[in-house]
């Protein structure tokens, strides 16, 4: 193919970053997320086993569901027995626990933190409010379905789910990871435009890059 077509294709593959002011765009990446294929079968099974054995939760209590994360972490229901521990920075975390409802101000931070996490990354959504809005179904500031904005692997129903339910959910997640079904990162990369459209529909002042690493 001729070079200029390739350039055009590359140009339209790049992100616009319209939210940013002109002079700042050069500081941010304009590449879209790319699909990353898993390794060969046996190696992938092995690393999946390792991933499922050490899950690192991002320490971001986005809602009232995160109140039950503290008993989960501490001495009564000691989650560290299962190799699950908290990680204060999204760069190192691998599990994002959405604690309950996400308000419009929080979903912006959720998207940003989720995109900064280094894959493979898994999302656990707590509470009825993330499934269908729960008792805030008619609130003007809380979203109804979280899976329109980021891919979700496990839902844990209840308001709020008990720590036992959370442990069960983590076990479910581990089983899914070992089967290699948790592919939210590639899902996000494939349907990137759809997710972005939904996110920009509710985040009115989009003043961050379209995809921030």
């Amino acid at each position, binding site marked *: 193919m001729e070079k200029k077509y390739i350039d055009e294709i590359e140009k339209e593959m790049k992100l616009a970053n319209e939210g940013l002011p002109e002079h700042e765009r050069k500081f941010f990446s304009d590449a879209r997320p790319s699909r990353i294929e898993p390794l060969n079968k046996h190696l992938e099974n092995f690393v999946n086993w390792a991933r499922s054995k050490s899950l690192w939760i991002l320490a971001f209590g986005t809602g009232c569901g995160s*109140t039950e994360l*503290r008993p989960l972490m501490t001495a009564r229901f000691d989650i560290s027995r299962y190799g699950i521990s908290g990680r*204060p920075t999204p760069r190192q975390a691998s599990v994002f626990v959405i604690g309950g409802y996400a308000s419009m101000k929080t979903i912006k931070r959720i998207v940003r933190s989720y995109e900064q996490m280094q894959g493979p990354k898994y999302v656990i959504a707590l509470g009825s409010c993330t499934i269908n809005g729960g008792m805030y179904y*008619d609130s003007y500031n809380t979203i109804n379905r979280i899976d329109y904005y980021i891919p979700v692997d496990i839902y844990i129903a209840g308001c709020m789910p008990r720590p036992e339910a959370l442990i069960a959910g983590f076990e479910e997640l581990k089983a899914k990871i070992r089967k290699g079904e948790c592919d939210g990162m590639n899902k996000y990369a494939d349907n990137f435009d759809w997710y972005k459209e939904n996110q920009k529909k509710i985040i009115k002042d989009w003043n961050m890059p379209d995809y921030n690493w």
Partner: protein
Amino acid sequence: MIKNSESKYKDFVADRSKYPQEENGKPVIDLSSHKYTKIWQGPQHPGVTGNMSVELIVTGDEIVDAKTRVGYLHRGFEKLMERRRYIQCFPIVCRICVPEPDTNEYCVSAAMEDLAGIEIPEKAKWLRTLNLEMSRLANFLMWIGGQAGSLGMGAISQWTMAMRDYWLDLFEELTGGRVYHMYMIPGGVRKDLPDGFEEKARELIIRTRDLLYDIERVFFNNSIVKSRLIGLGIITPEMVAEYGIVGPNARACGVENDIRINNPYVKYAELNVKMITATEGDAYARAKVRYREMHQTLDLITEIFDKMPAGGEIQAKLPNVLHWKIPAGQTYVKAESTRGEHGFYMVSDGTKYPRRVFARGASYTHSISVLEKLAVNISISDLAALMVSVHSCPPEIER
């Protein structure tokens, strides 16, 4: 830059000779001159309490300007309550403050009873008092764990969270809910005490006391804790009126402001609640006040069990709550939560739906105005301890 011997803390002043230069009393902060850094502490940060953020401007390690940014938990409760009937309002209000939901339940039920002119039976009052005190204790346990954790002392927070969990088990037995217990419905309470509840509670009180004595030994008598907390975030008695400071934060600097004593509600008139005050007004004094409050709460629970009548009606006669019209009027009902005055302002216009409900949380002022004032001049290491020390609870700020 920051003096840190305990005695010197009383006249605590940071060295302002370099940054920021002051012009007619106001510091000039110019971010373009590379003397200052802007740091967002939160919302994704292990050191903040809940889902809030503080926008800091620091020079070196010292904070020269702080602005609290809230709103990450705004659900528009007041709007939702305008769309719900009175009895439908009741199950959602306990979500307003997550660690201590019962104060909200009590306030909204009492406001409805006050507007509708319903007098609730004695036993229901006793049970409400018991429930309020238990939730106060649970929240204080969570708080002291957070205070120790903010200083990097993980053991205390692990112990207290485990102990709080046993109290939550009692809640579950009494109300059926672990964190959110929709217990104090308008006109009374939902359930009477289950069998054997009192024995379990008394046995747990003893264990909690042992834990509290351990905490005093390990935490309050710790030299490093003292050297970090004494003199941190001093609240003066003059600030109390100016900033609307209530609760333990006000009591820690000598202002006798306790609603349980000043305006006794449910059954506090018949219990001997003591006014617990301190004089220093710094973080250590606040911690001590809350520690003594926990002991007093244990005493109160024992006293309630002694004085509570065995049987009795627990639910007053209500009209059909599905189409319950409350006569027009306005009222303000307040209760003493762990953070201070927690009030509900309810306006009804004679229809089935409330016209306006407003929840006044104590940390609305504590963690915005007061925190922004206290956070200036301290080191960035102390901010987490300070935020816990003023006991900020984000969900009740933004409702």
